[in-house]
């Protein structure tokens, strides 16, 4: 397979009389390196600076431990299983809340975007709720639901609900009425027009909401786990700091960053598959 491939490429210069494979390869390779560096160069430089200044003693290594110590702590935490339990409980909290927000916000938003009367009636209260910080309401939720799982999941749900709801509503409202009229000319019923025109038209905006909500979910997860929790990644960050296990604290922070990146990447690739028609994403 690979031999065949090379053979095919070698024959190209014979037809076109262009550059040979020998001259092509270093150029392609160096272009790949340039592309890699232009994307990750600053990140690599940042990590390298951290590592060097910490191990050389330019910064307090007790506060900013060298990267390799953090990686070791991360490895021990994962291989030893201590951090795995935290990851599981955190994913459960954020996942439950996010799923509930999706289940409520998308249908409600599609409905609100379609029916003006519903939107008019609900908009003022939505604006008030949206402008009230979920963190400020957390004590209220604790009073209502206790200091257990319910209040944690609920505060995350509350905060993730609004970005998704508002983006779904605006996605529906942005659908071009001229397209709806076109569908009507072909005899589309309201339901068909909704399924074939409104829904696909709102998808890009719904994804904007999903990505915002995923970010918010992780943010609120950590905040809620810093109060009255004895497990979870957010708890580990606080607890490790309290016990002065700084490498472990950073390991927990790295896991958080990783979860955020994975969630975003998952949504981006889902969006790519569903929205191939629109201009390339990002």
């Amino acid at each position, binding site marked *: 397979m690979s031999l065949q491939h090379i053979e095919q490429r070698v024959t190209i210069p014979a037809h076109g009389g262009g550059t040979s494979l020998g001259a092509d390869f270093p150029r392609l390779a160096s272009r790949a390196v340039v592309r890699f560096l232009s994307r990750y160069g600053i990140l690599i430089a940042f990590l390298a600076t951290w590592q060097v200044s910490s191990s050389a003693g330019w910064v307090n290594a007790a506060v900013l431990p060298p990267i390799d110590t953090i990686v070791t702590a991360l490895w021990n935490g994962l291989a030893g299983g201590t951090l795995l339990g935290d990851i599981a409980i955190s994913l459960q909290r954020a996942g439950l809340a996010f799923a509930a927000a999706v289940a409520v916000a998308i249908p409600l938003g599609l409905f609100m975007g379609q029916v003006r009367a519903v939107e008019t009636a609900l908009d003022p209260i939505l604006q008030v709720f949206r402008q009230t910080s979920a963190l400020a309401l957390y004590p209220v939720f604790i009073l209502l639901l206790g200091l257990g799982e319910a209040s944690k999941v609920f505060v995350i749900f509350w905060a993730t609900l609004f970005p998704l709801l508002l983006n779904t509503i605006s996605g529906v409202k942005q659908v*071009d009425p*001229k*397209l709806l*009229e*076109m*569908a*009507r*000319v*072909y*005899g*589309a019923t309201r339901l*068909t027009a909704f399924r*074939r*025109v409104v829904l*696909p*038209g709102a*998808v890009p905006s719904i994804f904007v909401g999903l990505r915002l909500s995923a970010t918010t979910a992780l943010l609120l997860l950590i905040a809620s786990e810093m109060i009255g929790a004895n497990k979870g990644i957010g708890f580990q960050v606080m607890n490790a700091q309290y016990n002065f296990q700084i490498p472990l604290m950073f390991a927990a922070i790295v896991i958080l960053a990783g979860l955020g990146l994975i969630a975003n990447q998952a949504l981006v690739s889902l969006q790519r598959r569903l*929205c*191939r*028609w*629109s*201009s390339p994403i990002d």
Partner: protein
Amino acid sequence: MASTSGGEVTIRDLSKSFTLGGRPLAVLRALNLDIRSGECLVIVGASGSGKTTLLRILAGLEAADSGGVAIDGSPVHGVGAERAVIFQEPRLLPWLTVLGNVAFGLEVRGMPKAEAEDKARFYTALVGLAEFSDAYPRQLSGGMAQRVGIARALTVQPEILLLDEPLGALDAMTKIGMQEELARIWSEENVTMVMVTHDLEEAIYLADRVLILPREKGGTARLVEVELPRPRDRSESRFVRYREELLREFGLH
């Protein structure tokens, strides 16, 4: 491909007015017209003379105040399967491919996807876009997009095709090519065509008859029969004389 008979439009005492800035604005006044089955009627008139309004009433997108429209004897209430509309903008669904857009009308009317796409393939080829079947609207030029809109309308095999300045947004070169294409489609598809344009040359090139909507409110609509053999030659002396006659009707010559 389309029906061999039918597509006869009767317009009787059709009136329509809008309220604009609190005042009533009479747009169409007691219009009477018979559009023959299979004919190409082109509507011209000054901007604001009610061309679009008339076409939208024919499409069933707008209701008349009094009087009415009948198609093959039955009065029009709302949209109908025997009519298709081509708007000035292509109005394509950006998330569907060219083929998906062309098949859209049939699918909305309940035809299974595979069957609809089979038919759509024929009309996509008819407008010269066979190679672009899998392209998305954002990858098309304005002229190509409009051809997709035309194919979508043809695919439902209407008896009456209503077109509101379908070539108005295209550049001059593309436009002439598309006029030839419309003339060819009309002669092949045996469909009644009612088309609005502000381009007099386009009107003479395509029309069996040209309907001139009056400039002043209260004036009367005029009909000009274009008796030229097809395909028409724009540089021919009789073609030029028709152009002068239409210009005179507009008081511009």
